């Protein structure tokens, strides 16, 4: 189906349609001074007239003059917690009086969930996570089941933040695939198109209107402006440049600023590291084996008995950056950065990955 126009007032119809199909809707809302994806009951709860200014180490909500509800770049999290849960049970085990162990997996039934407002960087990150969790030797059934429950309604970014650099990584600001429905927010409403069969079925049931030429003109102008981002990575292929710079003094310098707090990896939509641990019942009769988000900035990440492979902050920062932009190419055929800028905004001390890369690799790398 070609793109259609959905007047702003009909956003409610979209929500009702999704609800009538049994979806729980998660939508962006202004909560605790940030845009968070939380259960959305009605369109009025969307962040109408809310803008966000992002700078290294800073995220500030601002009021806008208009009533747009997607006129901001992103919040601290989007899809990652939905597909790769911050903490979940991997398996459970019971032990009977004879010492026999019975292992089982918790139910993997997840409520069908529609996520409204997904960005191109989120979709690109989801694809990277799919490559990690679903490919390779062991398909991750937890991830697969959570992912399968999602219906994704993406929005092309009209207002990238100062921290965004998706244009330079090739992951935005427009969505190319991976969505069920895709919106562009214009003053009067939305340009809407489908990207999957499920999306097309849904779109057919909406009270859409034909797209008019003034819509297309406005859209083109908006998309041009969004692609004009000031931050960038010098290249999409920095593998050799980074591994050639393992002794660069900048690693030590950034370590004087870096807190090794793991905020960057936690907000990064592609970071996948997790640790596992057991949580036995006090009675000793059963135990849960859990996994939770971990970070390469912890000592535990590289601990092997008697030593920590990456004991210093410099080594940890270098591991993060060389993996994200370097060895990720070896693993999944591209860089692990989708340019969302979260690690820049949410770093408590405002370390900027684009600035560090520029310092370490120089502008010449490619």
């Amino acid at each position, binding site marked *: 189906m070609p793109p259609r126009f959905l007047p702003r007032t009909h956003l409610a119809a979209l929500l009702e349609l999704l609800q009538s199909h049994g979806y729980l809707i998660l939508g962006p809302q202004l909560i605790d001074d940030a845009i968070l994806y939380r259960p959305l009951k009605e369109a009025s709860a969307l962040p109408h007239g809310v803008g966000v200014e992002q700078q290294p180490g800073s995220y500030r909500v601002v009021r806008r003059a208009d009533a747009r509800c997607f006129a901001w770049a992103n919040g601290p999290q989007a899809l990652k917690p939905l597909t790769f849960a911050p903490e979940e049970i991997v398996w459970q085990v019971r032990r009977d009086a004879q*010492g026999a162990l019975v292992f089982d997996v918790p139910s993997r039934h997840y409520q069908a969930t529609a996520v409204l407002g997904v960005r191109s960087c989120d979709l690109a990150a989801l694809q990277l996570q799919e490559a990690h969790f679903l490919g390779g030797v062991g398909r991750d059934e937890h991830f697969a089941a959570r992912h399968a429950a999602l219906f994704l309604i993406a929005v092309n970014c009209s207002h990238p933040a100062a921290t965004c650099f998706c244009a330079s990584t090739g992951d935005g600001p427009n969505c190319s695939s991976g969505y069920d429905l895709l919106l562009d927010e214009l003053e009067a409403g939305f340009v809407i198109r489908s990207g999957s069969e499920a999306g097309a079925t849904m779109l057919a049931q909406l009270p859409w209107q034909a797209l008019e030429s003034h819509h297309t003109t406005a859209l083109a102008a908006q998309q041009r402006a969004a692609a004009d981002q000031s931050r960038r990575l010098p290249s999409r292929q920095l593998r050799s440049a980074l591994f050639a710079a393992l002794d660069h003094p900048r690693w030590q310098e950034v370590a004087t600023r870096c807190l090794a707090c793991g905020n960057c990896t936690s907000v990064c939509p592609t970071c996948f590291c997790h640790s596992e641990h057991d949580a*036995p019942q006090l009675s000793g009769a059963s135990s849960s084996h859990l996994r939770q988000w971990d970070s390469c900035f912890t000592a*535990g990440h590289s601990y092997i008995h008697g030593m920590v492979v990456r004991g210093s902050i410099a080594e940890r920062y270098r591991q993060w950056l060389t993996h994200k932009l370097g060895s990720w190419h070896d693993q999944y055929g591209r860089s692990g950065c989708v340019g969302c800028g979260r690690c820049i905004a949410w770093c408590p001390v405002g370390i900027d990955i684009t600035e560090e890369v520029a310092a370490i690799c120089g502008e010449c790398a490619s």
Partner: protein
Amino acid sequence: MMLPQQAEIVARIQETPTIFTLRLRFIDPAVQESYRFTPGQFNMLYLYGVGEIPISIVSDPQDAQTLDHTIRSVGRVTAGFAQLKPGERIGVRGPFGRGWPLVEAEGKDVVVITGGLGCAPVVSVIHYVLRRRERFGRLTIMQGVKHAEELIWREQYEAWARLPNTQVLLAASQGSALWPWHVGHVPVLFDEAKLDGANSIVMMCGPEGMMRAALPELRKHGVADANIWLSMERNMQCGNGKCGHCQLGGHFVCKDGPVFALPQLSPLLGVRGF
């Protein structure tokens, strides 16, 4: 996702005060029946309610009945395993990773170099070669330990030393009164090892410092980098390339290794922090 399988401890052998071997048999005969591994691979052993750790398989792949793991008690989970008795059950997931290049090794001299408890992963190679003696050339075993007392399977080494076409060279950085072997680090052994570098395949395992120290010696003796194989150790939580802890550059040690050919590792081997 792979669930652990129950296995029973059928025997427990105390090798040294801190090292012990658990001989396991899967409770489900079908699992035992279909279980296959290559020397150098490892299992994730699960101690009920406590945690899961990677441990190499040391038994012979043709022992269909049981599975041996030799463990050094160093921390919380291993100390817990140390308290288990025959009859008790644990969880086993595996086998994981890529084992030793035994097909490539056929027809060649096999040089096994280990240090510390590094011997565990290669003991299975030694058994493997000895059982199929005709397929391989000379077998050279070089082992370094910190303290003379730490050498496990001492009688075993002595027995191996008596076999034809087999050379055993041992070194302890701190010897003791009854230590008939060398005192010093592994490199001192090379003077005595009569390596035919061009026709040798080397399998190494143990502390990275020891393995790196052996490299110049091996190259001096004409061993090509492509014929040097190392078993690596990194923190592992999941065993199948998902948890991210075992990354070494672009490699996930658990699934791309733990055994690597030297050229795969060389740019990062010995770089602090990788």
